[in-house]
């Protein structure tokens, strides 16, 4: 079984404001991740961070179809999903620096950023952790009779996990409004999907569970947005789950500090030249929007991220007494 591939999607129906807003969200993610890359070199960020640069069109293309009340479940590489779903730059930055004003009061860090008030059910340090959780959010929507949906983002690595298979089967059996988005960036840590995904066909594998599944160019915002819209609309209308395999590359290592020896500098440069979702977006809208306008968005995003870093650096640490708070609602 193999899944159809979505070719170039229509750009009809997007207003100028839509286009500028979409670019702004992608630009903010890029600025956030680029800045974290350099900031991490100072040694002031505790723990591990995994950067999303290169994959912006997937998070934004999917989440631009979602409502605040819809839920997403994310991965260890979750900053882009968080920002796309509406988490704030400043509280996220505070969280990544481990500060009290962080979105999770400094208790989660980069890998556990969550904000249920905007439908962000958590980044996740466990590969394959998101799919079984998102079917729960989808079950809530179905049981409570909202027309909400749940979307899990999972990498090519997570696509091989048993939890992911179980979740897809459950979603089909119970006809849940769940969308499984597979971000195939070609690498699970330092092991290529070409090696680790036995069938070389993540969407095809999802289709075999009994749901519509498509492959889409994850560097093209418009293609992702169209594929996600179809899946999300179907789920809202009671049509059950779907899967999307979106291909892309990540511009940084698996984690910050990864020397990236699984590809050459020349190969990486070629990716940046040919598979950069921001550059591709710019090219796609060149007939409608001046480059200078998009440059201004980039500059504003960088400025906002700069301010967030400065704020987070100066922000207070959590009080030591917080080490035992919020373990339980009551105990």
């Amino acid at each position, binding site marked *: 079984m193999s899944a159809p591939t979505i070719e170039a999607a229509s750009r009809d129906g997007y207003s100028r404001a839509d286009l500028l807003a979409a670019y702004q969200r992608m630009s903010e993610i890029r600025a956030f991740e680029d800045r974290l890359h350099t900031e991490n070199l100072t040694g002031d960020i505790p723990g591990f961070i995994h950067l999303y640069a290169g994959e912006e069109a997937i998070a934004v293309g999917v989440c631009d179809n979602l409502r605040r009340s819809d839920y997403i479940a994310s991965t260890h590489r979750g900053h882009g999903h968080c920002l796309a779903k509406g988490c704030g730059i400043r509280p996220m930055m505070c969280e990544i620096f481990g500060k009290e004003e962080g979105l999770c009061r400094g208790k989660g860090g980069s890998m556990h950023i969550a*904000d249920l008030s905007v439908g962000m059910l958590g980044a996740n340090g466990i590969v394959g952790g998101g799919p079984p959780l998102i079917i729960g959010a989808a079950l809530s929507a179905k049981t409570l009779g909202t027309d909400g949906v749940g979307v899990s983002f999972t990498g090519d690595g997570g696509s091989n996990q048993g939890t992911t298979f179980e979740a897809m089967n459950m979603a089909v059996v119970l006809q849940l409004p769940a969308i499984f988005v597979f971000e195939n960036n070609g690498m699970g840590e330092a092991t290529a999907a070409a090696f680790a995904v036995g069938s070389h066909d993540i969407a095809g594998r999802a289709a075999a569970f009994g749901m519509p599944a498509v492959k889409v160019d994850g560097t093209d915002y418009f293609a992702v947005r169209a594929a996600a819209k179809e899946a999300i609309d179907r789920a809202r209308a009671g049509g059950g789950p779907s899967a999307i395999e979106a291909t892309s590359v990540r511009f940084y290592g698996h984690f910050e500090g990864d020397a990236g020896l699984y590809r050459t500098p020349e190969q990486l440069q070629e990716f940046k030249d040919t598979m950069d979702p921001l550059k591709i977006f710019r090219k796609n809208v060149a007939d409608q929007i001046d480059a200078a306008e998009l440059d201004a968005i980039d500059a504003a995003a960088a400025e906002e991220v700069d301010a967030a870093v400065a704020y987070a650096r100066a922000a207070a640490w959590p009080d030591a007494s917080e080490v035992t708070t919020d373990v339980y609602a009551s105990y």
Partner: protein
Amino acid sequence: MTAMSYRESIRAAIADAMREDDTVIVMGEDQRGGKGGINPDPTIEAFGGVMGVTKGLWTEFGDARVIDTPITESAIMGMAAGAAATGLRPVAELMFMDFFGVCYDLIWNQASKFRYMFGGKAKTPMVMRGIIGAGIGAAAQHSASPYNIFTATAGVKVVCPSNAYDARGLLLTSIRDDDPVIFCEHKALYDVKGEVPDEPYTIPLGVANYTRQGDDVTIVALANMVNVANRVADQLATEGISVEVVDPRTTSPLDEEGILESVAATGRVVIADESTARCGFGHDVAALIATNLFSELKAPIQLITPPHAPVPFSPALEREWLPSEAKVADAVRAVVGA
């Protein structure tokens, strides 16, 4: 009051909760049973859970709230956790608690840590029901009592009822609770009846129950070990030994005061625990007592656990594996110097 079995009592608590709160749902393998089968009668509840605990719930509450699932524990537990964080109160049945190993990540890394990792912004009101206990020849993968593992897990609560009355009251409390609760049902108890009120009632988590009162020695016991301890207490009373039995009822939270008060009064303690020979619940209680009451103990703490071995199949071996009445009674005699 009605004489009700442990099984009926658990079912009653789930029904109590479902009647009072539309967000309470039941999920798991065969909660109704027969889904997709060929029996032409659409009203048949083929199973009601593998032990028949949920039988009747589907008839009353229907497909939307009694959800039969494939036997895929990670998807069941993950779905329960995700649903709990987004507005439902799932009661998930995973059959034998040995199977929790299949979906341990969803308990240990997900549900239990949500609230903390998310800075207090999530609540995860879910109950995970599982069957514990050896003694019926169910062998190594259907007989374990791993409540000690979950007791060591911050973020989940652990409940181990020893009788029908406690089961209904503790389960209703657990379903109403805003934290994840692991509810351990001992398979030897399902048919044991007790007097249970007709109306819904609750028992708080973290409050021990003294099932026997005595002066000479305390037995701390949990789940079916409470019944073993009660029989030992009754038997030793005829030998002139006065035994107090403390049933903590929940291992997390743990009623430390309730345990220490009894041991401080008797000065002697036997702990009867079906979990494990190493790092078990009994060791936790022993450490609690030793660190708080060392100078008041009149004899060393006696700990009766299974051996450091999986549960064997053959009845001849399983009898040897279990903490028996004879072993517990001997331990009591030893601490009183009889």
